[in-house]
């Protein structure tokens, strides 16, 4: 089981994402200028400030050579997880619906949030039970989710914990096919008891379980 974590200039959570993946499998970093996905079984687009987030968060990164391959990988049904800036990149690339706008408060938020698992049937949440609550840190300035059309919500901020003004408390959404998932909070920062919660591990364990059953099928 090999995960690939994309590294853009300006990424800053790619190593944590790699370490989180390594708790459930092998993981390599994928450089933004390379088109070769090195035969990975799943892709993580990590958090940070890709290409400085000049213009809009994620707007430039979607044109990176590696993203052409990631888009192709997603079209073929490959599992793609976008975290924070990765979520923004996937929305800008049209791999996920909607957009992420500057926080309602115009402030950078950095806090632990409780997330309600709305959809435990996705390849990214199958290790969760429906209605589970995950405690995961969030840290961003542009996390206000907006979509003019109905979307497939996977995670919501628990009542009263919406940190950014997201529409309907949406914290994470999937594409229609269910193989691409993005969320603003950082599951890769919640995989070790040292940092207060291991709830983020469930996302990576879900991906491993999904990929294992695919290989077996």
């Amino acid at each position: 089981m090999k995960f690939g974590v994309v590294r853009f200039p300006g990424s800053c959570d790619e190593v944590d994402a790699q370490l989180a993946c390594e708790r459930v499998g092998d993981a390599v970093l994928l450089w933004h200028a390379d088109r070769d996905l090195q035969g990975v079984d799943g892709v993580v687009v990590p958090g940070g400030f890709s290409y400085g987030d000049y213009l809009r968060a994620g707007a430039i990164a979607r044109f990176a050579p590696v993203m052409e391959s990631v888009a192709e990988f997603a079209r073929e049904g490959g599992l793609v997880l976008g975290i924070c800036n990765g979520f923004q990149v996937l929305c800008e690339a049209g791999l996920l619906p909607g957009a992420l706008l500057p926080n309602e408060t115009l402030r950078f938020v950095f806090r632990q949030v409780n997330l309600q698992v709305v959809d435990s049937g996705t390849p990214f949440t199958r290790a969760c039970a429906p209605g589970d609550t995950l405690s995961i840190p969030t840290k961003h300035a542009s996390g206000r989710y907006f979509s003019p059309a109905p979307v497939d919500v996977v995670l919501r901020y628990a009542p009263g914990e919406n940190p950014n003004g997201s529409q309907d408390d949406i914290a994470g959404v999937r594409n229609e096919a269910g193989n691409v998932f993005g969320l603003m909070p950082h599951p890769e920062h919640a995989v070790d008891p040292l940092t207060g919660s291991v709830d983020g591990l469930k996302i990576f364990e879900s991906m491993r379980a999904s990929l294992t059953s695919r290989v077996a099928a």
Partner: protein
Amino acid sequence: MRVRVLVSPKQGILDPQGQAVERALPALGFEGVANVHVGRLIELDVEDPSQVPAMCDALLTNPLVEDYEIVETAPAPHPQPAAHPQHLS
């Protein structure tokens, strides 16, 4: 051609920047201000202005959440080196 692209948040989408400015103005004594929106201005010199809408849709704006207006201003100024440099003494 010199082109200006005026980018604004789409109608109906919360614009916290505009709201912050709207709240700040009365505090400074400016009354009677409403519907403040804060957007972006992108200026560019282009050889073919007909390509600008495609540029807006592909990169300059996110059409899902932003509106844009394209204003053609004036031919791009081409800095010309002086043909006969004058040495003033």
